[in-house]
């Protein structure tokens, strides 16, 4: 077994056994952990769109909100089982992203601005479509995650295990896409789109696929969140924070890597809630801003690439 396999095995043991055993009784810390990993899931989906699709999105709140509403409504009004509803929440977000296909011809800030506008449109729709969404009053008593074979997935530990599994599956999907021929072509498209089209790459199709995948992932996380907090309103489900915090997390952790955004989300969220908040209860986000600015200046590629580089150097020095 090589070093990489050992590291993966240790990480899995840590995530699936050590964390629930050590932190499970501490409901507050577990809730913070669940929230941070959920943000990590959105950050990973955002980074996939940026890295493979070459698109910087400021509108992932749209996918998050659509996923959460679709899942909540399906489970509440049609009695769809929660896990199936969560999957369909992701499908709903992917379907919603079809409306954004015209924006794919835009580049850089124009795409970012257009997709931000779409997020606002979806928020307004959720507010005004009162007969279905409950309007600004929102939805309450959204079904929690179920109990299966005697294990309560609605418990804090159950919630944690579900979101960890979701994010790990997303990371595997991301890795598979990146390693595929499609991933290689997508990598090339960033700075040389005409050159890729001229050799037969349907760049618009590939970008659309990345938008669907990213929207699906974000929608599933949104759906999970709806069943986790059991309440939903448009200003929360479509909050701009679901667009901006994942960006902060992804850039902090290293958006060019697959797990960097997740590690960034967990680090940023936990340090903010557990450390900064205790020193500056009101306005603790200022510390977060300073931390991000410091990281961007100190290591523009992010936390994970910095750690990997340090590790490589120390091994090189020891050899």
């Amino acid at each position: 077994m090589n070093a990489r396999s050992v590291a993966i095995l240790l990480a899995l043991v840590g995530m699936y056994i050590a964390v629930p055993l050590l932190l499970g009784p501490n409901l507050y810390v577990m809730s913070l952990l669940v929230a941070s990993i959920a943000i990590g899931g959105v950050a990973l989906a955002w980074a996939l769109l940026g890295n493979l699709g070459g698109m910087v999105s400021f509108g992932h709140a749209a996918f998050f909100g659509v996923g959460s509403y679709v899942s909540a409504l399906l489970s509440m009004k049609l009695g769809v089982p929660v896990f199936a509803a969560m999957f369909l929440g992701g499908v709903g977000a992917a379907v919603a992203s079809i409306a954004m296909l015209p924006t794919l011809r835009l580049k850089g800030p124009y795409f970012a601005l257009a997709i931000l506008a779409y997020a606002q449109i979806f928020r307004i729709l959720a507010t005004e479509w009162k007969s279905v969404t409950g309007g600004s009053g929102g939805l309450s008593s959204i079904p929690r995650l179920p109990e299966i074979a005697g294990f309560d997935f609605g418990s804090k530990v159950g919630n944690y295990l579900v979101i960890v599994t979701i994010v790990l599956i997303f990371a595997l999907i991301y890795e598979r896409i990146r390693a595929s021929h499609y991933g290689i072509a997508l990598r090339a498209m960033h700075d040389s789109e005409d050159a890729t089209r001229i050799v037969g790459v349907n760049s618009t199709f590939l970008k659309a696929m990345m938008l669907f995948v990213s929207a699906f992932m974000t929608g599933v996380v949104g759906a999970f969140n709806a069943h986790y907090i059991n309440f939903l309103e448009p200003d929360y489900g479509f909050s701009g924070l679901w667009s901006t915090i994942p960006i902060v997390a992804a850039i902090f952790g290293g958006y060019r890597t697959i797990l960097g955004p997740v590690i960034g989300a967990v680090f940023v969220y936990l340090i903010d809630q557990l450390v900064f908040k205790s020193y500056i209860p009101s306005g603790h986000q200022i510390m977060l801003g300073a931390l991000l600015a410091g990281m961007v200046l100190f290591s523009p590629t992010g936390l994970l690439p910095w750690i990997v580089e340090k590790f490589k150097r120390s091994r090189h020095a020891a050899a």
Partner: protein
Amino acid sequence: MLQLDNVTVRFGGVIAVNGLSLSIATDEVTGLVGPNGAGKTTLFNAISGLARPSAGRIVFNSVDVLKAPVYRRARLGLGRTFQVPQPLSRLTVHENLLVAQRFATGSIDESRLREILAFVGLTEKAGRDATTELALSELKALEVGKALATNPKLLLLDEVLAGLETVGKRRFMQMLKDMHAKFGVGILIIEHDIETISNLCKRVAVLNFGELIADGTPEDVFRNPAVIKSYTGADHA
């Protein structure tokens, strides 16, 4: 056979290609020449789909490709290189060819890729970063290799020899001659050097101000007074 009928390309008020009609065979090497600004690269862009003609028809092997997207034209067998090499960024030389082959033909044939790499002289550089680790002559070779990997029936070469020193140019020219024979691909080449064109092509088309002013053998074309005037600005004495 590539058939252009009355093709016109406009950029606002500027007519870059004006009602051009031309047939290009896929079993020979044809030269496309003309002074700077004659519309040669714009015509290549129109054929490959990067520029949209405002009028006319473009038919390739009996398929009307005027409205076909760029990638579909590549899959139909219209290969192309750029005047300024455009390697696929963040990829190795081998990955450049792999992407071209995979997406243009729908499959991967590693032995064919090795054959192409050897043919363009990049076997030793297969693992190098195509954007940062190649000299100009190697980037030009990669352009040709990438285009060959798409398995083209007609290859549009845009000033592929420009910027090369004499020895490199001679070697490259031999490669183009061999390519026509070895891969059975038709070539339409833009080139300024008359000697090169005369050497490579049995037929030459001349553009000036977006219009076809001559079409024939190199001997006839380069003696044509209209062609001489287009280059020198003066009547042939």
